[in-house]
Each structure stands twice: as structure tokens, then as C-alpha cells.
């Protein structure tokens, strides 16, 4: 679905004529005030139930959606460059959601990925977009992408991203980033061809912290292809946009491309606890689909304390957000899963097992991940955890919320104590043979061990 010009112009108009809101007021009064008010109004305070990390009460999810729609209507989305709020009426927001497609495709040829709206416990397997834009060195990019593209569960690619460009540090917002946008596309196309997956859809541009990477790499000769690849528009928290985001949007329009709208809310951040973060995510998702006309994406919660979303509170909020979106919209919602541990650790795979299962049963259409080791370390991403996460994501489709909750409660005690200080593990170079693209015996053994324990806990792997 290409972008509608009238809606785009309306967004730009609102970004320049909407009500003035200073960012400090937005962060300290507008957002926390609206969240607190709606939590109270809809009786959502202290509803987080860590003993049941996957919410079983769908009426609660329904109330969260109604409250989220009210938050979105009341606050809108702040444009940080103009310090004005982009606001719509409730009817306009619902019309914007209705205009989003219930299905779309990325990629081409035999690699076309068919995204579709999913219901809770939907038996149709979701789409696995992998990995996140974790920084890697230039020598690692190709073997890693070949290895990841070789994982059959992977439907589309987003990362990794480059740490340097032709040896120079990649500086955000600089000419280096402009060059990196196209370089990444070229390296991707080369690597996926080597992997025999030429048509696989790409999320553009992983190496684009500002708009420059997208301007340099999407829709330019030799760059990402608008007819098969999608532009990432990632909004800053809390429910904000910026000229950088809006320029990506304008560029996607110019190129006839589709957009992905993403954001997040931190538990312990501007929106407060798990209930506030969940509510903020729902409101933000409604705004993303209206402001960016996106075909895919959503805002997802994670925990400021662990910088991940595989602990009990974050899982509860994560599941609830996507239950609410699944039941009240027909969008193709995408979440991100943020793991904290690194490769060759059981913790990483347990985080993936519980997190991916949660997303699968709660109605996400797709997930982007993993964020191995929290994305903190260069070259800490390998094809094996990508494979494991994809297996869980697809094969847990069709599980009931109750079954998934039982599995989560069996597996969480195996790793939740490590989330505060997650094990770093090993880098791709340390635990893989880069020539054969085979994992070390130790990494394979960890994979087999956790997989067997996950099966024993009830995951249908």
C-alpha cells in the first residue's frame, strides 16, 4: 500500500499548526497525566499479574484498548522539532486504523512474505523478521547475513548494521550515514544472493539512525527497492515524532514505498509501571498507523531495569498490548523482542522461548529480533539463536493463552534471576566457524539442551 498524499500533507500541516506543547511538559505532565487518568477511569491500575505472565483476561485487554484510544485522542503525537501535537478526533483515528491493510507482502518471487492480521491463538504462523540492527564489523556482515538468510524460518531481513563504513566510524547524521544506506543495500543483495534467497524482503535501512541512511539507500539506483522493501520509521518515546521521522515518511512517499512504524515504552519510564507502559504502547500504535500510514509495526513495552522484555512484568505488558490490538484492529502488528543475554548462553534461548511464544499466541503478525545481548556488543548475534527464536515463534502458533501461560511459568524460573546481570556469552567470531557457518559444539549443545527443556515444558517444537 503506497502512501496517500492528502494524509501525508495533513500530518505535515498538523505538525506545524497543531497545539503547542513544550517537550518538558509533554514528558512530565501531558503523557503521565493522560496515562494516570485513563488507568484510573478504566480501572486498569495494578492489574499486572506477574504470576500469570500471559494475560488470560481478554475483557481487560478490551478495556486497555478503549483507554488507549482515548489517550491517543487526547494527547496525539508530539513533533519535537516544532513542539506541536499532531492530533486527530476519535473517528479520524479509527478511520486511519481501518485504512491500514489487513494483509500485505514484502519481497519478490518465491521469497514473497505474506503478512496478515492474526487473532489470538491464531494457527497461521507469523512472519519472522531477523535480526535487529545489531552492529557488526564489515568482515562479519556477509557471512552473518548468509548464515541468517540460510535459516528457513526467516522470512525477511532487517539487520545487522555496520559499525564502520569502508573502515571509517559510522557517524549518525553525517555523510557517512548517507553512504552507508546504499552500502548496506548492496551488501545485503550480494549476501542474500549467496544464500540463494534473492527475493527476500528487506527492512530499510538498519544502518540509519537518522533519516540520512534512508535517503541514501532507499529507492536510489542499486539501493533498497521500494517495490519489495519497506522503510523503517522509528519514533522516539513517548509517542513522539520528529523531522527525521517525517523526512523518512516523505521519502517513502516519493519512492512509492511502504512504511513500518515502530516505537516503544519503557516500564519505569515516562508512562510509569507495566500498566502505563502497555497503555502508552496501544495509544502510540494507534498514532503510528495514522501518522505514518504504516502497513506493519507497533509500539512495544520493555523494562528500564533489565533493558529487555522477557521478564514477567514486561511479558505481561507485551502480551496484553498485542491482545488488545489483535481484538480491536485488523492491522498487521509487529513487535520487537529484546533479549538481554548473549550467544552460547541458556539464558538467551530461554528468553527467546518465552518471549516469542508470548508474541505468537497474543496475535502479532510478525516479530523483529532477536536483540541478542541487548544489542550492546559488536558482533554478538549468530544464526543459531535466530533459528531457535523463529522455530518457537512459528510452532507456538495455535497454542491457547492458558497453555502458553503454563509453559511460561515453567520456563521463567530457569532464567529470570539472570535478567539483572545477563551473561554476555560469545561473539559470532568466537562461537562460529565463519568458513562453514557452523556453530561451535558448545553453542550447539546449549541449543539442544534448551530446546529439549522447552519441549519438556510443553512448547511444541
Amino acid at each position, binding site marked *: 500500500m503506497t502512501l496517500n498524499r492528502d494524509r501525508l500533507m495533513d500530518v505535515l500541516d498538523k505538525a506545524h499548526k497543531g497545539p503547542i506543547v513544550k517537550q518538558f511538559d509533554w514528558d512530565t505532565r501531558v503523557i*503521565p497525566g493522560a496515562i494516570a487518568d485513563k488507568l484510573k477511569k478504566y480501572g486498569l491500575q495494578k492489574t499486572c499479574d506477574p504470576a500469570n505472565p500471559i494475560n488470560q483476561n481478554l475483557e481487560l485487554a478490551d478495556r486497555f484498548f478503549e483507554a488507549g484510544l482515548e489517550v491517543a485522542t487526547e494527547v496525539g503525537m508530539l513533533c519535537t522539532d516544532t513542539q506541536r501535537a499532531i492530533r486527530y478526533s476519535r473517528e479520524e483515528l479509527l478511520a486511519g486504523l481501518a485504512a491500514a491493510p489487513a494483509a500485505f507482502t514484502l519481497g519478490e518471487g518465491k521469497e514473497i512474505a505474506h503478512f496478515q492480521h492474526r487473532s489470538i491463538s491464531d494457527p497461521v504462523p507469523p512472519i519472522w523478521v531477523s535480526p535487529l540492527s545489531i552492529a557488526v564489523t564489515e568482515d562479519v556482515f556477509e557471512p552473518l547475513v548468509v548464515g541468517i538468510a540460510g535459516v528457513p524460518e526467516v522470512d525477511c531481513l532487517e539487520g545487522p548494521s555496520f559499525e564502520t563504513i569502508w573502515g571509517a566510524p559510522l557517524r549518525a547524521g553525517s555523510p557517512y550515514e548517507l553512504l552507508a544506506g546504499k552500502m548496506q543495500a548492496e551488501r545485503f543483495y550480494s549476501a542474500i544472493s549467496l544464500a540463494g534467497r534473492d527475493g527476500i524482503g528487506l527492512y530499510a535501512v538498519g544502518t540509519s539512525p537518522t533519516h540520512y541512511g534512508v535517503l541514501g539507500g532507499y529507492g536510489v539506483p542499486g539501493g533498497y527497492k521500494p517495490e519489495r522493501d519497506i522503510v523503517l520509521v522509528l519514533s522516539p518515546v513517548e509517542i513522539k515524532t520528529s523531522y527525521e521521522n517525517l523526512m523518512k515518511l516523505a521519502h517513502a512517499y516519493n519512492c512509492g514505498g511502504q512504511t513500518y512504524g515502530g516505537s516503544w515504552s519503557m516500564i519505569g519510564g515516562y508512562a510509569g509501571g507495566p500498566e502505563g507502559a502497555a497503555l502508552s504502547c496501544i495509544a502510540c500504535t494507534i498514532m503510528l498507523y495514522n501518522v505514518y500510514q504504516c502497513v506493519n509495526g507497533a509500539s512495544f513495552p520493555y523494562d528500564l531495569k533489565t533493558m529487555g522484555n522477557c521478564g514477567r512484568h514486561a511479558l505481561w505488558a507485551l502480551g496484553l498490548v498485542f491482545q488488545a490490538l489483535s481484538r480491536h484492529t485488523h492491522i498487521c502488528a509487529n513487535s520487537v523482542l529484546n533479549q538481554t543475554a548473549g550467544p552460547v548462553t541458556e539464558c538467551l534461548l530461554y528468553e527467546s522461548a518465552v518471549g516469542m511464544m508470548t508474541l505468537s499466541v497474543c496475535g502479532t503478525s510478525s516479530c523483529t529480533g532477536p536483540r541478542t545481548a541487548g544489542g550492546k556488543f559488536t558482533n554478538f548475534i549468530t544464526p543459531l539463536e535466530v533459528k531457535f527464536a523463529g522455530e518457537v515463534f512459528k510452532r507456538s502458533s495455535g497454542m491457547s493463552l492458558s497453555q502458553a501461560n503454563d509453559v511460561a511459568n515453567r520456563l521463567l524460573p530457569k532464567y529470570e534471576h539472570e535478567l539483572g546481570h545477563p551473561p554476555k556469552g560469545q561473539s559470532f567470531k568466537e562461537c562460529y566457524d565463519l568458513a562453514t557457518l557452523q556453530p561451535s559444539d558448545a553453542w550447539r549443545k546449549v541449543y539442544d539442551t534448551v530446546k529439549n527443556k522447552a519441549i519438556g515444558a510443553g512448547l511444541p517444537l
Partner: protein
Amino acid sequence: MDKQELLAQLYESLLDTDPEAAATAAQAAVDGGVDAMEAIHVASEAIAKVGDLFECGDLYLPSLMLAGEAMKRSMAILSRYISAEQASQSKGKVVIAAVAGDIHDIGKNLVATMLSVHGYEVIDAGVNVPPMEIIDAAQREHARFIALSALMTTSMPYQRDVMDLLREMGVRDRFFVIVGGGPVTPEYARLIGADGWGVSAVSAVRVCDRLLQSNERPPVKSTFLQE
């Protein structure tokens, strides 16, 4: 109101994270004959309590930011009533910024507020700030510390640029530099020659305290690291 009631009012206004009420209470305290240093001591106790509540998860980021603003507003009043000698008891100025290319502000805001509530005077230079602007601000403000936040690997090179610029400009010995942010590791902090690195906002305060207590001049011999 007697002095104890005035001090209690100031304490409560800060616990309520209400900047307007804190400013009013601070003015009322000095007008009512409360010694400004005593009021500052009480305000510091209140703000330390706010910090504790945040660390325990009983308060969230917006309240912490409002508490920081409340402290700033009350200090602006109280500091007018103390001597220059007393004023020098502040731990020192910190210029903090999310470096160029990085618009993520949560981590920066957290550190800024925690430093503020622990007695540092914080100058927030904002997000997406070019290296030279950060140094200009530090020089203009006669800062003791420069604190640099980066949440992306692609903004980390700008932390290094600040270090390089400080050395090339011959002013490296004027500022302690601390760095942090999601992908910023202790190894990277050492590599670029930062004086300190912390894993969290609380760690950042401890790092700054340790740097002050070290009696070293920047750059320190080995980077202070705080988990």
C-alpha cells in the same frame, strides 16, 4: 508557621515533586527566618528520598524529572541567601548531553536528574548535540564534568570526537568526562580515554563522587567503572 513547619512544607513540596510549590515553600522559609543552609539541607534530604523511591520503583521518570525541576527552582531562591563560601559547597557543574545523531533522551534525563538530586549543578545541553557545542557549553559554564550519553553505536563515535577535541584544544585537564548509554561498554570508555563509565543513573552519581574524592586532575590514570 514556625520554622519547623516551614521546613516541613519545603520537604513535602519536594516529595510531591511540585516545582511551583517548592519555589513558594523555599521563599516562605527564608522569609520566615529559616537559615538558607538549613533549608538546603532539608531539601537535599527530601530529594534523596525521591531518588530512593525511584530506585525502588515506587516513583517513575516523570516524577523524578519534576523533582529535579522542583529542586532547581528552590535552590535558585535559597542560593541567593547563602554566602559565596557556602555556595562553593555544591559538588560542581556537570554539562550533560546526548551526543550528535542521538535523539534518545531517557537515559540522559535520568542521569541529569539523579546528579541534580545528589548535589551537582546540571546544565542539560539537550540531545543531538555536536561535539564542539558540548565543549563550548562546558567552557562557558566552567563545568567540572562533561557527561556524554549515546544509545546507538552510530552516535558513539561522537563521544570519541569530544575526547579528541578536548585533547587537541589543550583543555582535557579541565573536565572529568564520563560516558554511558546502552552500547557504551567499559572497554570503549577506556579506549577513548574517558574518566568514568557507569551502567546506570545511580552509577553515574557514584562515578562522579569517586572522581571528586580521588583528588586527581583529569585525565585520571585509569577509568573509573561502576556497575
